[in-house]
């Protein structure tokens, strides 16, 4: 009897309440996180050792699926297409940086330009797919515009069919979709530079070019580097442009497009899981290298400042958050 009362008392006490509120508030997100992330992650690892479909019998095959990933012509070799997307993201970042700098100074109609360039980011993937199938069709939008510029239709390639050019066409759509978003990020970074720095520099007689060279660029160096590195991981998992526009036909199938096809069309779940695990390991390694790289870069640059480490950690935390934001807004694919 006495015991029970103490338990009741404890439940009404601060500590009891604290535990209760913690459980009540965390149970749902943690269960969801487990069921939809870590459980499938573990399961997928298990699948990768089996020859199996979603339904029916499964047969243990050991490392065979992994060997296949490296042997088959369409699996690991598809990663070379990532190079196109890496080049594309470098172009995209350079373009975004240039436009962000331009728009950070006083520009007539600045917000209109900004809005027009940003809007593609908000269009859903399938719509983007249709827009560009239309855009690249023989004799349609792109060809017409090139003809305005003096090109002859006969000299123009089939943008989505010609294997010499089609991957670039797809990369172009990706640049089109994301350069505005990158630009908005860079504008945000430039705006967050302390205004006093600009004032001081202007008092010292700095012109715009000097402002750019000595104040803007150094202070947004971090976010630029972060984006460059992020885009490497993004390129490895390039998925959306070929998925929605060409469905991977004519040599445009990136690693993930082929993995999707193997998993959901051919239902070779084991092989697809092995592909997923291989790429996950590569991505995690790349991420780890990035972290080490950053530790190195910022340690050497900010050694004398005791707050530097804390600031760097916060920056990295924010980077991860941003990465997530990007992923969440653009759907599950990068």
């Amino acid at each position, binding site marked *: 009897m006495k015991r029970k009362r103490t338990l009741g008392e404890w439940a009404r006490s601060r500590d009891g*309440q604290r535990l209760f509120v913690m459980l009540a*508030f965390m149970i749902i997100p943690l269960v969801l996180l487990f069921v939809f992330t870590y459980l499938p*992650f573990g399961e997928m690892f298990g699948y990768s050792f089996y020859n199996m479909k979603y339904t029916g019998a499964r047969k243990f095959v050991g490392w065979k699926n992994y060997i296949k990933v490296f042997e088959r012509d369409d699996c690991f070799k598809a990663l070379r297409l990532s190079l196109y997307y890496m080049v594309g993201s470098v172009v995209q970042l350079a373009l975004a940086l240039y436009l962000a700098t331009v728009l950070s100074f006083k520009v007539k*109609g600045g917000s209109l330009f900004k809005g027009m360039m940003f809007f593609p980011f908000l269009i859903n993937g*399938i719509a983007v797919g249709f827009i560009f199938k239309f855009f690249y069709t023989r004799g349609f939008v792109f060809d*017409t515009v090139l003809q305005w510029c003096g090109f002859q239709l006969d000299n123009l390639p089939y943008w989505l069919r010609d294997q010499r050019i089609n991957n670039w066409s797809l990369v172009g759509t990706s640049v089109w979709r994301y350069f505005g978003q990158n630009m908005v990020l860079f504008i*945000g970074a430039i705006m967050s530079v302390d205004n006093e720095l600009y004032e001081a520099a202007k008092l010292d007689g700095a012109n715009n070019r000097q402002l750019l060279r000595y104040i803007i660029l150094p202070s947004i160096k971090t976010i630029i580097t972060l984006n460059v590195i992020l885009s490497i991981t993004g390129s490895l998992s390039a998925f959306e442009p070929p998925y929605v526009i060409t469905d991977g036909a004519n040599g445009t199938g990136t690693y993930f497009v082929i993995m999707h096809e193997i998993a959901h069309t051919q239902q070779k779940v084991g092989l697809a899981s092995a592909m*997923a695990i291989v790429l996950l390991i590569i991505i995690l390694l790349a991420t780890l290298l990035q972290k080490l790289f950053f530790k190195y870069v910022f340690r050497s640059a900010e050694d004398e400042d005791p707050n530097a480490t804390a600031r760097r950690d916060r920056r990295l935390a924010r980077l991860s958050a941003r990465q997530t934001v990007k992923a969440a807004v653009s759907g599950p694919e990068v």
Partner: protein
Amino acid sequence: MESKVFNIKMIPWIIVKYLSLVFFSFVAVLPVVSCVITAFKTEEEYQTTNVMTLPQNWLNFDNFIQAFTKAGMGRAFVNSLIILACVLFFSTMIGTQLAYVLDRFQFPGNTIIRNLFLFASLLPGVAMQIAVYEIMYKLHFINSLAGYITVMCGTDVISIYIYIQFFENISKSLDESAIVDGASYFTIFYRILFPLLKPAIVTSCILKGVGTFNEYYMANLYLQDKKKYATVATSLYTFVGPLGSKYNLICAGVIIALLPALFVFIIFQKQIYSGLTAGAVKG
């Protein structure tokens, strides 16, 4: 005098500046504008004129009506709205509550939980769906709006970070004085902190809302009954196949599907920009 020289030297730069802005804005809007042009053309016009020739009648809404009915977009809009409302409600509740506990309570495992969420965000969604599919199947979540809503909430990490960041900026003395007054943790959260979170909630709901509205990969995978459970994004799949070359219809469908995002963008431009930047730069 000096400033005049300065200005003359600036002229080429100003020209380059505006030329490049106009050029890239043109590149950004051209694909969409060409769709708008085509969407207003009659079948005959579409067949006979160049795609960039303007339509004769800007009030020809036939294609829009046809696209809307053929793709069952009425149903799709209803579904998308239900999904949107539920996902926003639940992920706001889950996200703010979790962020509250993680920011306000020190307990062993706090950092581990944060890292678990962080690590989850590194895993590419397309790859994860291979195994999630099996789980969805076992839970009878295939062809179920509730199932799709659950998985959409479950894979949501974005808002948690926005909320944690926001909580860090709300003074803890608020909580403490409420505790002294004898308020329970629930009261503190719902009566005091939740209302203060409003700006963060608006920001993350807009981002999350656009993301949810545009999501198609999981919708395509898990809502397979395209008649009953189409969302606005997946309803466009109607145009794959026999209708695949009727671009006047397709363009109309595309325009209908992107209009909501356009409205949201025009109204909430500032919040969208600041929401995107919030995670990345400030400070």
